[in-house]
C-alpha cells in the first residue's frame, strides 16, 4: 500500500508528557504524499501543525505511529528531508553563502562544488550580490529566500515548509508565494507546506489537508489539481473553494 507514495504518515500521535500531566497534540493522523506534490497542511493557529512537521523532519519523536518514505520506514533525521523554518532561523554568524552551504558541508560535499551549488540557488531565489552579507543586514523577505535556498541546496527529496511566510507583510507574502511556485516549477520536489492562512493554501496547493484544532486530527482533504495555475484569488472558483474550506475550519481560539 504505502509504496505508491513518496511519503506516508501512519497513525501518528504525539503527546507532551511531564511528571504530572500530559497534553495530546497530534491525535492519530494518517496521510499520504505523492511524488513532487505540493501538499498544504492547513489548520488553525496553535493546533500542532509545527509539531507534526517536526516529527516528519525527525526533530521530534512521535509518541505513537510511523513515517514511511518510498515505502520504507524511517525514524529520526533523514538526509532526504529538509525544512524551511518558521522563525527564519538563519545562523547569524554565517554569511548568506555559508548559510546556504551548511547542509552540503555536513554531507562532506567538496568546497568548490558547494560554492557552485550555493550560488545556483542564491541566484534562483534572486539574492545575487548578497552572498557575503550577514542575516541581520537582510529584510524579512530576503531572509526567508535564504532559508528556501538553504533547504533546496542540500538536495532533499522532500521539503518541509513551516509557515515560511507567516511573519512577512501582505505584499511580500504574495510575491513570495509566486516565487515559491516558480522555484518549485523549475526544480520539482515534494513539498509539505504548513499554514494557517486559507487563501495561501488555496493559492499554492495541489491538495490541502485540513486539520482540526488541538488535538489535531485530519478533518478533510481537498483536491485542487483541477484548478489551473497561476490562480486568480478573485475568481469565482477560487472564492467558492475558499468558502467551502472556511466553513469547515475550526475557530482559532488561541488568537
Amino acid at each position, binding site marked *: 500500500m504505502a509504496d505508491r507514495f513518496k511519503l506516508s504518515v501512519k*497513525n501518528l*500521535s504525539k*503527546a507532551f*508528557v*511531564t*511528571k504530572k500531566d*500530559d497534553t*495530546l497534540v497530534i491525535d*492519530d493522523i494518517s496521510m499520504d504524499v505523492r511524488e513532487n506534490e505540493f501538499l498544504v497542511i492547513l489548520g488553525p493557529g496553535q493546533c500542532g501543525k509545527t509539531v507534526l512537521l517536526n516529527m516528519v523532519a525527525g526533530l521530534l519523536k512521535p*509518541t*505513537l505511529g510511523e513515517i514511511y518514505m518510498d515505502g520504507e520506514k524511517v525514524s529520526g533525521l533523514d538526509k532526504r528531508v529538509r525544512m524551511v523554518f518558521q522563525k527564519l532561523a538563519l545562523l547569524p554568524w554565517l554569511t548568506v553563502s555559508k548559510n546556504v552551504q551548511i547542509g552540503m558541508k555536513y554531507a562532506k560535499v567538496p568546497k568548490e562544488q558547494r560554492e557552485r551549488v550555493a550560488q545556483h540557488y542564491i541566484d534562483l531565489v534572486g539574492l545575487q550580490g548578497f552572498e557575503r552579507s550577514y542575516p541581520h543586514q537582510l529584510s524579512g523577505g530576503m531572509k526567508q529566500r535564504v532559508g528556501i535556498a538553504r533547504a533546496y541546496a542540500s538536495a532533499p527529496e522532500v521539503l518541509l515548509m513551516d509557515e515560511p511566510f507567516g511573519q512577512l507583510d501582505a505584499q511580500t507574502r504574495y510575491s513570495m508565494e509566486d516565487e515559491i511556485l516558480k522555484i518549485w516549477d523549475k526544480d520539482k520536489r515534494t513539498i509539505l507546506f504548513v499554514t494557517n492562512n486559507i487563501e495561501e493554501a488555496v493559492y499554492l496547493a495541489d491538495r490541502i489537508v485540513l486539520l482540526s484544532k488541538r488535538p489535531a486530527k485530519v478533518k478533510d482533504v481537498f483536491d485542487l489539481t483541477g484548478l489551473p495555475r497561476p490562480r486568480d484569488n478573485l475568481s469565482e472558483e477560487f472564492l467558492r473553494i475558499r468558502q467551502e474550506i472556511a466553513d469547515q475550519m475550526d475557530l482559532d481560539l488561541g488568537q
Partner: protein
Amino acid sequence: MNTNQEKLTKAIARERKHIKNKSRNLLFTSIISIVVLLALWELSVQLGWITTRFFCAPSEVLNALIEKLTNRAPDGATLPVHILSSMKISMIGFLMAVLIGTPLGLLMGWYKPVDKFIRPAFNLIRPIPAVGWIPLMIVLLGIGLAPKVFIVFLSAFVAVVLNSYAGIKLTNRAMINVSKTCGASNFTIFRRVGIPSAMPMVFTGWKVGLGLSWSTLVAAEMLASNDGLGYMILAGRQFMRVNLIMVGMLTIGVIGLILFALLNWLEK
C-alpha cells in the same frame, strides 16, 4: 480505534516512567558526587596520602569549627567575634553603596546633565580595583573602621551605579510617551514609570555589589586589620594552622551564601 487509544495510554505511561527515572537518577548522581568527594578528601588525609601540614580532613575542619566558636587562640578572638566584626564593616559599606549608588545611577540614567557631570569622574575611578585604594585610604582616613568601610563601599558602589543606570535606560519609550501625553511632569514619569521598570536591574546591581563587597572585605582584612575573618585566615597562615584557614574559608563562603539568599528573599 479503541486499541489505538489503549496503545497511546501505554506509550504515555512508559514515557512518564522514563522521565521520572531520569530525574531520580540525576539527583542520585549529584548526591553520590558530593559524597565521593568528601570521602576521598577524608580518606586521603586519614590514610596519609597527603600530609596534614598542607591539608586537613573534613572531620578535622568540623572539630576546629566547634572549637573556634569559643577558643581565642591563636589569633586573639573567637569565631563569632570575627564574624561580627566582618559583618559590621561589610554591612555599613554595602548599605552606603546602595543608598548613594542607587539614586545616583537612576538620576544619571534619566537626566542627561547629571550623567555628563558624574560620568568622567566615575570612569576615572572605576578601573582601579577597590583593593588598590587601601594604602591611600589608610593614609587619608587613618587606621580603623573608616578605610575598610570605604573600600567595601567603593567595590559595591560601582556595580550598583552601573546596574541602576542600565536598568532605567531600559524604560519602555512608549510608556514614557503615553505618560507625557497624559500631562505628567518629567519627574513624575521618572518616579512612577522609570524607577519601577528599573527595579529588576537595580536588584541585580545590589546582588553583584553584595558579592563584590564581601570578597573585597576579606582582602581588606588581610591587608589592614587585627580582626575579622580575613585577618583570621591570614593568621592561620602565619601559625601554619590549615584547619583554621579552612574553617575561615568555609565561614566566609557560607555567610556569602546566606547574604545572597536574604537579598533574593527581599526581592520577592
